């Protein structure tokens, strides 16, 4: 390619409080190319895009637009240069409508006022591209995580970018929505847009990208065309050694006993659910984003009001009425939105890890910092969370935050783990560790309920998958019948019917 890159970083370095996060990293985004940025959690990917988009300034090195160095990159300059970034649900305002969120920072104006007419037209066009059909006046706060992600993408498209940077755009999207996005990116590429794509889902990267830059511990370890590389090769580039299989070998461990059994269960969007969760199994919950799956978990966990005709939880009849009761019955829940529901970002990592313990211990028992420290270090080692545990959790990269959200339940040895997209934004190596943990957990005779938007995960990890559509469990796929197609078609059933009608 002879043209100058639309956007490039040349030898940039960045340190936070003296800890180097990026060292002498270069990257060049060419028009009409989807460029993958890969690396383990905490490798520095988000930091690099923050430098590229002017949200942060490099300690050294330069940012170039159209081959010319920019003295001081700012979000405003980036916008003028046609650079749009899809942050991970970070930049939305819950109380503003979809349209107002999409246009923010770049509203069309008329007589100094926001031109709602024009805004509606342009926002609608952007929404259409990503398949968002909610009314434009819907407050973003009413949307599920996955839909918000789509708004975030529509927001970037609205700006008609020349350079589009996406930081893990698919981490909370189901297969169907991912497909919409990948098709879209393909078309944008055809239009000559330069795209930088960060994802931990390597099959997507393989299908979509032409070029890859790999970061490891803040240094660039590879920058090459993707041609002739396979997923294994990619992982090798990232972790520097031969990867094993991502998914552990499946071995049946389910027993006939039910850990949780509900009849006529209703909670939130879910209604009339009959469900048996067996001890020793990993039960997957699949379906399109936002069909009520989350309410199923929350209802079982006592976090939202639920009704049942009858229920047994670990031998006790009736559902737990609140979270402490659920914990006492051996239930644990790991939320999907780790920033809002899973973690206390401003608190030290170790405090986050200890919280379930604090919730259960006698209120006035004296704490032992030493014992906490030891336990915390043990957990950190188990899940390879690096660094000082006294740092606030917000200093961790997204994937590592996810690990903390999971780790805090480990010491309690729960009988039933309710997991809401636990590998969202987690790098492959950690995913593998988590998968191993889950299977081992099941093998030890406990139950795992795995709600996931990552269909391969459901297929390879689960004993059974319950597919949810419009608040009901529409299909229960046994292990033998599990395949991506089966899950997707069960999930899409409603759409098909509509089309047929």
């Amino acid at each position, binding site marked *: 390619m002879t043209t100058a890159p639309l956007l490039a970083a040349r030898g940039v370095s960045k340190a936070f409080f003296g800890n180097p996060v990026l060292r002498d990293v270069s990257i060049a985004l060419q028009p009409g190319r989807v460029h993958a940025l890969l690396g383990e959690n905490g490798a520095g990917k988000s930091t690099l895009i923050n430098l590229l988009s002017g949200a942060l300034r490099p300690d050294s090195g330069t940012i170039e637009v159209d081959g010319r160095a920019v003295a001081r990159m700012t979000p405003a300059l980036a916008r003028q240069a046609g650079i749009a970034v899809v942050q991970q649900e970070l930049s939305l305002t819950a109380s503003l409508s979809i349209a107002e969120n999409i246009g923010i920072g770049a509203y069309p104006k008329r007589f100094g006022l926001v031109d709602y007419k024009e805004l509606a037209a342009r926002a609608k066009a952007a929404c259409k591209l990503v398949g968002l059909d909610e009314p434009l006046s819907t407050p973003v706060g009413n949307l599920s995580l996955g839909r918000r992600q789509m708004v975030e993408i529509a927001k970037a498209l609205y700006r008609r970018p020349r350079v589009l940077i996406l930081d893990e755009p698919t981490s909370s999207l189901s297969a169907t929505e991912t497909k919409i996005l990948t098709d879209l990116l393909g078309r944008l590429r055809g239009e000559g847009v330069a795209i930088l794509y960060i994802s931990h889902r390597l099959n997507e990267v393989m299908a979509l990208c032409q070029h890859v830059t790999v970061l490891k511990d803040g240094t660039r370890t590879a920058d090459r065309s993707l041609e002739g590389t396979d997923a294994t090769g990619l992982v090798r580039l990232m972790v520097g050694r031969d990867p094993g299989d991502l998914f552990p070998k499946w071995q049946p461990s389910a027993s006939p006993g039910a850990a949780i059994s509900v009849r006529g269960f209703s909670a939130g969007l879910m209604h009339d659910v009959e469900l048996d969760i067996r001890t020793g199994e990993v039960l997957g919950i699949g379906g399109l984003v936002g069909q009520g799956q989350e309410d199923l978990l929350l209802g079982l*966990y006592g*976090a939202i009001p639920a009704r049942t005709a009858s229920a047994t939880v670990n031998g006790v009849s009736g559902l737990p009425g*609140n*979270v*402490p009761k*659920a*914990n006492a019955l051996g239930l644990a*829940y790991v*939320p999907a939105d780790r920033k*809002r*529901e*899973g*973690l*206390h*970002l*401003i*608190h*030290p990592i170790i*405090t986050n890890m*200890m*919280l*379930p*313990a*604090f*919730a*259960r*211990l*006698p*209120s*006035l*028992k*004296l*704490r032992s*910092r*030493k014992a906490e*420290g030891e336990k915390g270090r043990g957990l950190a080692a188990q899940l390879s969370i690096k660094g000082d545990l*006294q740092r606030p959790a*917000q200093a961790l990269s997204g994937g590592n935050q996810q690990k903390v959200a999971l780790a*805090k339940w480990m010491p309690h040895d729960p009988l039933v783990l309710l997991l809401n997209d636990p590998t969202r934004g987690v790098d492959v190596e950690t995913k593998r560790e988590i998968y191993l943990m889950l299977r081992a957990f099941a093998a030890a005779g406990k139950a795992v309920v795995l709600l996931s938007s990552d269909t391969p995960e459901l297929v390879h990890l689960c004993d059974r998958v319950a597919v949810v559509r419009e608040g009901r469990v529409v299909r229960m796929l046994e292990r033998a019948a599990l395949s991506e197609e089966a899950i997707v078609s069960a999930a899409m059933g409603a759409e098909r019917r509509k089309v047929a009608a």
Partner: protein
Amino acid sequence: MTAWTDSAGGRRARAILTSRPFLTLAIVVAVWIAASFASRGFGAYGHLRYLVELGAVIGLVAAGQTFVVIAGGIDLSVAAIVTVSAISLPLLSWQADPTGLASVLAVLALTTAIGVINGLGVALLRVHPMIMTLAMATFLQGLLIIIAGGSAVTAENLLVHWLGNARPAGIPAGILLWIAVSVLVLTLMHATPFGARIFAMGANPLAASLSGVPITSTTLAVYGISGFTAGLAGVLVLGMNGQGYVGIGDPYLLASIAAVVLGGTSILGGLGTYAGTIPGAILLVTITALITVVNASPGWRSILFGSLILGLLLLSGRERARR
């Protein structure tokens, strides 16, 4: 937070030296020294002791306020609770109670109950803390109309009198009380699971609740504590003035909030320590005393007071970024 790292001693010392509580304390000392140069009597031992004794009242009210603020709320009823405590204590004295302990305990039970009702409103009715406690303050005003002036019994309570006037070993009893309460509060806050739950609840109630923190009972406890410490402050201030009156608690509402924030506790909840509130309270009474001895018109004095708080805040009060 910084004061409790379990890493090496040197780092720990540095953490303490750069911590907000220590910074606030350093400011207090600096103001004391500067003021003593300006006015000889200001730095006299007796005066400083008196300032700390005054600080004890604010400090007690602010103890509960610190809990509430860290838990993500705010208590606007503390002033009314202080008044209710000081006014109702003489009403609750009995012949069969020569030390006065029983009436003090009865009053503390009453004010704690008031706090718990605040907690009920916040946790169960889900009324915003500011509204709930403001409404409670309004209720208590109504209550005061009924009970105030009704009794002509002066506080002939030995314990209360002792608290307000005795000086065992030369230290005013009020200061001793404050020290005892401070030790308890700091322990509760930083060395028990209960304390940890409060921080978690304040930083992110949703995540705390999903982690199994019992939100309702913790909220009740937090507001109950605030009612308790405000009641205790009412008892102390009654002893120091020999007499309760309607309005005796009024100065302590804004003072308690200011002490909490000057001490580095985030008004947004989830971060902070009572260790900062303590010097924060002393700082406030110090500034007030300083303004009193300055000869200026009321307008200028008010301006000076505000400017001093603002200036000290500039030295110590940066909010950390969050979210």
